[in-house]
């Protein structure tokens, strides 16, 4: 700073560093503040609208803002970033196809998955495009309606996982101390239980309904999200912007939900989306072992019931297996794309 700034508000300083003021002499380029996506660098501002004449010397003029940035709403920004990522886009399309197929498919195909339609072990042909299973049920009908159970178990179990994990992780990470020690011991206790075994025990005790299978999977897999959330909260609570929110008088719940959580979300969303795929797989495993809901067709159930005949009738296992694979792949790719798009720092 030069010494002539001392005390004397030098009018020259304002002019020199005020490209905004200079911009006023130029013909207005934009249509005005309402021009939504207008990328023009010289945003016209009337002098009469400027409440602090002297304070407005302004090197960071709107020209310094990326035109794509401030003019866009959050949703457009998110969409633009998400659509830019080929893997995420492919994942989203794949997931959408899977979801549409299992939502609309059973109605369109119109075959009861439990109905015996022809002889057992019929190879795929025009009658039964994916063949028939060991009792002569249509595999395609099974794959279509089984997907409803598999995908909804995946979704709801992952939601349960996220709710439990976020709650425990954020409380432990934010408050620290005794609370942290206690909650992390609980988390470790659950973590040393083998997921599949734990879910099997719960299903065995409480009965193999679709609801119980979902809850068991949720209870058996929230620990990763909890630990990840805790780590993010511990890292973020020391950051300057959290301290500045504290000095602005934010309450603990507001700090946790509004300030810290959105910053912690990207890795947690990835983990939670991964949990969807994990839950789909776990549901498949439970059904494979005969612990799924026997009254609901699911991909795991088809594979489990036909597992002894896989060498002779590959189609009984390959088609539901492929459905599981494609769903998991779609969800994983989507979660990766979400990670890139939800994080403005990566832009």
């Amino acid at each position, binding site marked *: 700073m030069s010494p002539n700034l001392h005390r004397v508000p030098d009018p020259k300083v304002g002019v020199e560093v005020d490209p905004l003021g200079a911009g006023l002499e130029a013909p207005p380029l934009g249509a005005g503040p309402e021009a939504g996506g207008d990328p023009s660098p010289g945003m016209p501002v009337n002098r009469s609208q400027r409440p602090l004449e002297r304070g407005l*010397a302004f090197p960071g003029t709107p020209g310094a803002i990326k035109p794509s940035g401030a003019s866009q709403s959050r949703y457009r920004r998110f969409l633009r970033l998400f659509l830019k990522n080929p893997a995420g886009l492919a994942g989203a399309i794949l997931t959408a196809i899977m979801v549409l197929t299992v939502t609309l498919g059973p109605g369109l195909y119109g075959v009861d998955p439990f109905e015996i339609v022809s002889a057992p072990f019929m190879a795929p042909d025009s009658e039964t495009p994916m063949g028939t299973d060991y009792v002569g049920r249509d595999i395609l009908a099974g794959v279509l309606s089984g997907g409803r159970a598999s995908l909804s178990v995946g979704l709801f179990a992952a939601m349960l996982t996220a709710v439990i994990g976020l709650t425990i992780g954020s409380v432990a990470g934010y408050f620290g101390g005794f609370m942290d020690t206690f909650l992390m011991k609980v988390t470790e206790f659950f973590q040393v239980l083998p997921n599949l075994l734990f879910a099997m025990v719960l299903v065995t005790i409480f009965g193999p309904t679709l609801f119980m299978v979902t809850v068991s999977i949720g209870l058996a897999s929230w620990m990763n999200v909890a630990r990840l959330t805790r780590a993010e909260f511990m890292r973020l609570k020391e950051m300057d912007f959290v301290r500045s929110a504290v000095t602005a*008088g934010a309450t603990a719940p507001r700090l946790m939900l509004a300030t810290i959580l959105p910053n912690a979300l990207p890795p947690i969303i990835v983990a939670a989306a991964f949990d969807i795929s994990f839950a789909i797989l776990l549901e498949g495993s439970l059904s494979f072992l005969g612990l799924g809901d026997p009254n609901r067709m699911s991909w795991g159930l088809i594979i489990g019931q036909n597992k002894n005949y896989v060498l002779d009738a590959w189609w009984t296992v390959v088609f539901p297996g492929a459905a599981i694979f494609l769903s998991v792949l779609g969800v994983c790719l989507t979660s990766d794309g979400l990670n890139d798009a939800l994080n403005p720092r990566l832009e």
Partner: protein
Amino acid sequence: MVLSVENLTVVSSQGKRTFPVVEDLSLSIGRGGTLALVGESGCGKTVSALSIMGLLPPGFSIASGSITLGGEKISSLPKSKLRGLRGRRMSMIFQEPMTALNPVMAIGKQVAEVLKSHRICPPGQIKGRVVDLLAEVGLPDPERQYWAYPHEFSGGMRQRVMCVMALAASPDLIIADEPTTALDATVQAQILDLLRDLQAKRGLAILLITHNLLAASLLADRVAVLYAGRKVEEGPTDEVLTNPLHPYARGLMDSQPKLTLGQGGTQGMARRLKIIAGQVPPPSQRQGGCHFHGRCEASTDKCQKEIPTLIARSGGHSVACFGAEEGGKA
């Protein structure tokens, strides 16, 4: 008085030992007044500020003294009450505008958070209020900036947003902790200008924490010089900057480049910068007597044994130095 700090002593505990970090500090700021707290790093400036905000880090505590904000003694308030005061009665502007804003929240939302935390206005009016505030600190096109993210802003714009956040709930006191240190020289002047304008309009009291004497001279009407946790000199800004009485304050002035205070710049340009040899002793190594005696050219035996008290001189100027006591300057 908006803020008055009386005989504040803050201690830091390491294991079973405790060290005073700030000793016997008294400050006061009236409505519309600005006090600059100057000193080297490690002098206790930030700890003083955090103790006023009630946000001392773990291991630090107020050992004695009191802090009064607008007639209410806040140093003994429970945490929950203090939370309600922060932002609404007093707020803080940080040094690093680059990291002090939430990177994933639109800046308008961040300002809105402050209003929501204190239930300042009905939810329906929050957005309009925020846009008005953004306009007030000179952000062009505030409607659009409401949805902008911090990474789209330059340092100066971010610091303006920080000012908005600090101002949103109309506090009486703003503590500005090195508000311009991370900014370019021209932007520094603008932010100081902005603070002065806001102060004039709203009658804010500002506690400016800085080691930049020029910033102090531009904004403050009084300056308090802190050394190793003790206030060694205080007085009107011009008086302290042109006629420093304490050897440490003089050392600070001499170590500033080109600070010629209105007299054409030649003599200041030509000389080599002086430095104060040594560094601030950390709290654990401070001994009796004047903390500055180890670095002071005019130190005597008395300086090593006794703590000099703050003696008032003419014109509201006071100094804590035996040398300055005896005959004008030491």
